[in-house]
């Protein structure tokens, strides 16, 4: 939980609103994509982005309301703690797959392949080059390793 001291320290550092953490990337046609920890996204025009980061955004603008509702910024007079609570809840939901540990295992049992895809990372071998096959002993160990996962989906 964010403390009152932390909250007031962060809020007092900017005006008239404060940005919340986000990442951005430029797209064609003068658009900038914003994404944040809550999994929200928004496309802004370049001039809107510049207004955002220079704290000159028109507070009555609909985009400003979008930015606020999607947790890209928070009004100064608003309390920061409940906003962080909400984002943390969304973040936890988005990352909920982590609590189930690894449930998908991909096993490469051979490097022999009849394709030659340019993007392949596996350094494929000729179809009759059997030295690249996984042997029985290793295969058993792989299966044992997979069943050691705490994931409830693998029993």
């Amino acid at each position, binding site marked *: 939980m*964010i403390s009152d001291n932390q909250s007031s320290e962060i809020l007092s550092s900017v005006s008239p609103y404060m940005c*919340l*953490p986000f990442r951005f990337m430029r797209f064609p046609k003068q658009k900038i994509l914003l994404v944040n920890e809550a999994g929200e996204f928004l496309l802004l025009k370049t001039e809107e982005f510049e207004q955002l980061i220079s704290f000159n955004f028109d507070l009555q603008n609909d985009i400003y309301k979008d930015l606020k509702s999607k947790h890209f910024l928070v009004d100064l007079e608003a309390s920061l703690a409940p906003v*962080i609570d909400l984002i943390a809840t969304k973040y936890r939901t988005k990352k909920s797959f982590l609590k189930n540990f690894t449930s998908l295992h991909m096993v490469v049992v051979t490097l022999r392949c009849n394709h030659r895809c340019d993007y392949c990372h596996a350094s494929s071998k000729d179809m009759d080059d059997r030295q690249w096959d996984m042997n029985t002993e290793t295969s058993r160990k792989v299966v044992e390793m997979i069943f050691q996962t705490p994931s409830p989906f693998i029993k």
Partner: protein
Amino acid sequence: MKGIFTKIEDGKILVSLNKEFYEKSAVFAAAHKLSGRFGVLIEPLDERTVGVYLQPKPGNEMNEGDLNEAAFDFCNEVLDQQIRLDLESRYGVIREIIVKQAFAPVSLAELTEVLGKEPNDK
């Protein structure tokens, strides 16, 4: 663009950046993005400026217009990288709080407060 100057010489373009505006990590991150198409050399020019030379790789020859466009793209990229650093230094602490709070165990006191009773109470 504020704090940025460019000059073409010997088929490569020099972008001079004012250290007052751009941090080393922003310059490196922006330069790395162009390293697929250009040989990139970064060196200090004087106490206040750092120079970034962009030289097209063999087979990727460019005219003056292309070089200027690449320098323009680099300038935008270094600006974006610096904005990312500024935002992170200003609000990175909030990101850490969000992640910490998201995975913090719920205390019995908090649970009791929300439920109005202890979880095992009938």
